[in-house]
């Protein structure tokens, strides 16, 4: 870690873009690990869930029958890591027959607001997400 990063003098906007379903490939799990590691560097982190990436956030995942670890509970820990902006694209949900109600209830505690619980998931349209993407300094896509 460089000095100026420790000072908070050079905070960059990091976007991790998730486009893959959770268990068919290793991308989703690897992306989550990168996010957790990257969270140590005190940057301004956002996650986007686009295309099949929205399937990562479905509630009620139960992998007992397929012998793969269910890592969806880890998304609930992201708030502890100060990762509080999860952009979910509406169009991607709709194309897949899903609504926001099918997703996990993800929240974070706002330190600046007496630890009030606030939702981490931000539903955005494709156009709105384009604007969010344009504001980023670094984008990593998985």
């Amino acid at each position: 870690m460089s000095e100026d990063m420790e000072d908070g003098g050079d905070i960059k906007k990091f976007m991790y873009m998730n486009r893959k379903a959770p268990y068919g490939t290793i991308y989703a799990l690897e992306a989550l690990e990168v996010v957790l590691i990257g969270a140590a560097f005190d940057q301004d982190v956002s996650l986007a869930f686009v295309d099949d990436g929205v399937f990562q956030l479905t509630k009620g995942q139960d992998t007992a029958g397929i012998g793969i670890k269910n890592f969806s509970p880890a998304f609930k820990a992201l708030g502890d890591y100060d990762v509080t902006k999860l952009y979910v694209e509406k169009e991607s949900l709709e194309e897949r027959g899903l609504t926001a109600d099918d997703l996990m209830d993800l929240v974070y505690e706002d330190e600046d607001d007496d630890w009030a619980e606030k939702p981490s998931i931000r539903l955005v349209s494709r156009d709105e997400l384009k604007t969010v993407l344009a504001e980023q300094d670094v984008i990593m896509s998985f």
Partner: protein
Amino acid sequence: MSILHTVNKSPFQKNDLTSCLAHANDDDAVLMIEDGVYGAIKGTQAASQIAAAGATVFVLGVDLAARGISEDKVADGVSVVGYDGFVKLAAEHHAVNSWL
């Protein structure tokens, strides 16, 4: 003589399901497994293709559960089966075509 087709890719990312359904005969069976099970969600383009197809379509329940897709989200006309159903389907058809 009939074939069991298995599809393990998400229909929203690959055209495996579309191509499989187009190549399946009416007495064939199509079984969606792994990420292929996302094709079973009702109200999607994939579900319309399944409804229009002649083959009988199944989906593997454990892969649905793993992905948090409850059975009430499964499109009409798609039957949920377990591993035992998978084995039975494989035995009932003279060949298995795994769309990879």
